[in-house]
């Protein structure tokens, strides 16, 4: 990620080609769709530092001028002082040269330092805004996209912008200045020699085009082969246990070798042909060097130019391909950065979770009466594919409501409507008689807690994770909650106790223990409405008993919605909602539903087709 930062110097060959070698083929070449728009918005970020930016521009101007002056002064030195008979203020001239050199270093230092500050501040703001935006996006946004894709926008794309602003911006600008400047000075000194020097430019262009037209497909093939090979490595090493148990080592080595040979073949051609580019550059540089020296010498003998001019030209010719080269490379970096910025802005433009209506109520105390009145929901209002259809039910404070039904029946969606991750397309949901859409989201959610089956924990200590439920809770309160949740006993047996650090996603404790912590966290939050999702995965019986007990305590005195899997749980419910295909087909308590002899009874008898068969 930081490769580009650690390479602050210009390389003698195109960096683009090397970078392609290191990747694993994950980065598709993207072009920005809306150039000016994206640049304009990026400018808005940069503009907050526009005076400093102006200063940088001035420095770049100065620096480019000085870069041209250096070789020129050497030429003057040769003509007027070394060759000449002296007498003129040689010391003064050298002093001037020293000053020019000093100023070159100083301006180049200042332009870079200032630009880096501007760039990093800009990137910081961009990053901050994007992150804040993530918290304002509606949950469906996350359901629609792969997490990795969003991640890459917040990390890679922003890094791209960062690297480009750090160095490429200045380099592009100064390359153009130097090119134009060099050309001008050369033309003034000797149009004929200038022509000779630039004779090689068309050759260079032609050569480059010839090579890139060949390397393009080669690189594509190599990327494909590399992707194939890396995929194979990843897959087989992840499944190593099976390979061992099935004694398949020999076979996978054989298959691996085939793929390895393929990448060797395509890699060879891609590398060899693309390696021509710097060689061609060099050769053409040498050619123009020879032309300038030879023809320049002849001209000098005829007195048409001075030796100093030849020296200046040799120096210019030696370095004019560099800005050209830089320009080509930086141009690509710039393009990919703009594309990256565009992807970032795309996220920033996503519609946000609708704002709370003006005058939305802030709920202070909540009893926990929940009512659904003819609620329907579909992801797409245009199409008529309701996920939930005409759901009505009533839950009294403290009641436990079990949600039962096959996958895709709409259980999870119902819960998401309750927490306003989604908004119903029809109908009204009320809490304590208030329409949910008339309550501020924060205050609504502040009275709710979730315990889901894959309990999410943060990297941090156990104490911090429980305290996430209520930030101002004291240590005593945290422990009290853990005790009620049945988590205390296992925490107490850990060497570091409540200060044990968990890894990302709660790494370091078992699934069941994570769930106990999630219960403790919810306990501490002290919500009025509780949403539970019973675990389906096999947690060992002892831990499971503890979880059950903890949940029982948690549910006491709170309105709870349980996506239930166990008959034991379901049987205790005050009300069971049986969902099928988005419809609420039966509701009532266990006994009543059994008497009814419908779908629930069928479920109860265990005659139940396997779940998840065609899910996803």
């Amino acid at each position, binding site marked *: 990620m930081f490769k580009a930062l650690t390479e602050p110097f210009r390389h003698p060959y195109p960096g683009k080609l090397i970078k392609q070698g290191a990747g694993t083929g994950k980065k598709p070449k993207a072009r920005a769709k809306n150039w000016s728009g994206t640049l304009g918005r990026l400018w808005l970020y940069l503009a907050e530092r526009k005076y400093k930016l102006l200063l940088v521009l001035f420095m770049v101007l100065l620096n480019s001028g000085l870069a041209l002056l250096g070789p020129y002064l050497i030429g003057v030195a040769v003509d007027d002082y070394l060759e000449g008979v002296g007498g003129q203020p040689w010391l003064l001239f050298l002093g001037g040269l020293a000053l020019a050199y000093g100023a070159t270093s100083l301006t180049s230092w200042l332009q870079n330092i200032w630009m880096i500050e501007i760039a990093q501040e800009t990137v910081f703001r961009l990053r901050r805004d994007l992150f804040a935006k993530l918290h304002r996006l509606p949950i469906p946004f996350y359901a629609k996209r792969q997490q990795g894709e969003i991640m890459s926008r917040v990390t890679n794309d922003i890094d791209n912008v960062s690297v480009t602003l750090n160095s490429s911006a200045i380099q592009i600008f100064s390359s153009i200045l130097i090119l134009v400047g060099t050309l001008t000075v050369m033309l003034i000194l000797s149009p004929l020699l200038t022509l000779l020097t630039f004779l090689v430019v068309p050759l260079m262009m032609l050569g480059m085009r010839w090579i890139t037209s060949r390397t393009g497909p080669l690189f594509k093939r190599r990327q494909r082969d590399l992707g194939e090979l890396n995929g194979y490595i990843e897959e087989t090493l992840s499944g190593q246990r099976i390979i061992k148990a099935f004694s398949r080592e020999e076979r996978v080595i054989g298959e691996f070798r085939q793929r390895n040979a393929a990448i060797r073949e395509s890699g060879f051609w891609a590398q060899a042909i693309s390696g021509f580019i710097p060689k061609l550059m060099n050769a053409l540089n*040498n050619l123009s060097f020879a032309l300038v020296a030879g023809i320049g010498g002849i001209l000098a003998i005829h007195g048409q130019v001075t030796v100093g001019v*030849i020296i200046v030209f040799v120096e210019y010719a030696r370095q004019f391909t560099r800005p050209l080269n830089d320009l080509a490379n930086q141009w690509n970096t710039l393009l990919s950065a703009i594309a990256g910025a565009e992807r970032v802005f795309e996220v920033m433009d996503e519609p946000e979770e609708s704002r709370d209506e003006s005058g939305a109520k802030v709920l202070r105390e909540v009893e926990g009466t929940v009512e659904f009145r003819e609620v329907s929901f579909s992801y797409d209002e245009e199409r008529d594919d309701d996920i939930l259809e005409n759901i009505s039910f009533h839950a009294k404070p403290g009641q436990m409501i079990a949600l039962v039904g096959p996958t895709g029946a709409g259980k*999870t969606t119902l819960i998401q409507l309750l927490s306003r991750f989604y908004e119903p397309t029809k109908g009204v949901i009320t809490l304590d008689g208030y329409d949910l859409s008339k309550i501020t989201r924060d205050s609504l959610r502040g009275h709710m807690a979730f315990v889901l089956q894959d309990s999410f924990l943060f990297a941090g200590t156990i104490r911090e994770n429980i305290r996430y439920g209520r930030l101002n809770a004291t240590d005593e309160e945290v422990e009290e909650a853990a005790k009620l949740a049945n988590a205390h006993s296992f925490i107490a047996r850990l060497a570091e106790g409540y200060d044990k650090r968990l890894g990302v996603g709660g790494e370091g404790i078992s*699934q069941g223990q994570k769930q106990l912590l999630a219960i403790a966290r919810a306990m501490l939050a002290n919500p009025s409405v509780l949403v539970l999702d019973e675990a389906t995965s096999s947690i060992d019986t002892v831990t499971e008993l503890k979880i059950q007990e903890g949940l029982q305590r948690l549910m006491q005195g709170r309105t709870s919605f349980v996506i239930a899997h166990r008959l034991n749980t379901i049987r205790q419910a005050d009300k069971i909602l049986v969902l099928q295909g988005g419809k609420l087909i039966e509701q009532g308590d266990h006994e009543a539903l059994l008497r009814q002899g419908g779908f629930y009874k069928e479920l109860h008898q265990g005659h139940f087709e396997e779940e998840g068969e065609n899910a996803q």
Partner: protein
Amino acid sequence: MRTVLSFLRKYRVAACAALAMMLIELSVELIQPLIISRIIDEGIAVKDLTVVWLWGGILLVSAGIAFVAGLASSFFASHASQGFGFDLRDRLYEKVQSLSYPVFGRFATSSLITRLTGDVTQLQDMVFMGLRFATRVPLVVFGSMIMAVIVHGKLGLMLAVLTPLVVWFVLWMINRTSARFGQVQKQMDAVNGVIQENMTGMRLIRVFVRRDQENERFRKRSGELMQGTVSALRLSETTTPVLLLMMNAGILAVLWFGKIDIAAGNASIGQVVAVVNYALRTVGALSALSWIMASYSRASASAARTIEVLGTEDPSEEQWEEKPESSRKTVFNRVEKKPEDQRMKGEVEFSRVSFSYPGSNLKVLEDISFRVQPGERVAILGATGSGKSSLVQLIPGLYEPTGGDIAVDGKRIGLLGTLRLRSGIGYVPQEVILFSGSVRDNIAWGREDATFEEIQEAARQAQIHETILSLPQGYDTMLGQRGVNLSGGQKQRLSIARALVRRPAILILDDSTSALDTRTEAALLMELDRLSCTTFLITQKISSTVSADLILLLDEGHLIACGKHEELLADSPLYRRIAESQQGGGDRYVQSTH
């Protein structure tokens, strides 16, 4: 690094040729200023046109030679580096495959993957660069120094004194900046960590309304990153201006003393110009130095990581083979394919088996003894961490017991030979591992020479045949990244089919029926009864232990009860409790929610 570079030995001709070509190119460049000085001194100064023509022509021809040499070096370097990469990767992969499972487990899988992919590519690139550019920089610097001294002793000496000073400065700066950049990388990881966590826990954060807190946390981390980046870059950006300043001071000195020498008749203009020219070339080369150092240090880190794998000692695998041989090349051919004359019967006996994972003192299993007759079904029950999975992993010899003996068909498994032992075992691990490829490939993975009929038969036994037929392309449906996604239960049954197609004498199901509903599971168990292979079934469900021939109840590594359902109901309080908790509420059924 040296060990890794020994992989280059096979390609030394190509590598040397590449270097030679580069040297030719380089010498052309180094001679150029010398030739220019000749043109000035012997041509222009004395108005001799033929000299100018001559040297101009030489310049032109030499440029041509350099070009051809450059192209050739590209080919040679590419051949050497690609061959090097191929051999290194091949050797690494073979090594990884030859490691026994416990030794393999010493490395994190993700880290092994990186070593085989990123690190090898890194090294391969370094070889390529090394043959083409990297070695060139010291040569340019050194060559310029020498040439300058040759052109004019006194003036050249100034360059020769200055250059090492500048090189030292650049290296010193590189050292300091790379430490800073290491710090920046850590800060970067921290920032990305916060993002990752927030993305995963987004719903939770919303429900607990912790938006402001998370924003604040992120702002702090990314603020640190900004500060770190600015300070690291500020330092690294100082290198070039100072480098320029030092070299330019040298040029000034050359001009100053050059003027004096010219006046005194000790030097010619051409000589002064040449020395200045060499100084400028040195500046150009030095600019690339920091980049080369950075990639060298990256490459040497990669080299260390690959060597760690290559140098892994693995004594256990050797002992596991039936006929130990010393040659390591034949790890996999060692046990020749034996005719299936002595088919495994499937009798398994544990006598006083203890086990701890390598590098840990915790006894995962202690003093476990039991005996299973061919064709019997064993149900293993116990809490998480009680040692169930560890126990079954010992049977195919994925791990070696630390104490006691395991015998299959009356023979210690250590004496049986890994290949023979494993070919009689069908193993279905807890986490489902499928490979990209078709459904058919995945089942046939269990036995290469299985016919399509046998594959279908195995699928039928695993209760997945019907489902496969309903897939878009039936048995040819592709799985994995580019194919369809199967549900958890379908994947489980597919990996059971993969084990069954081996027609194993011993079948191990490590909680592999957890996502199946009761009915499918029952049908599967019935199929297994018909197959008459010894079955080890790890389970949480009493329903599947009832009909077992033997139930092993594990608790913290101890076998606390062992027998049939009725016996355990009578003898084991824990078993009774578990049975009651599940049967009191009738059969559990499972419904998945996502």
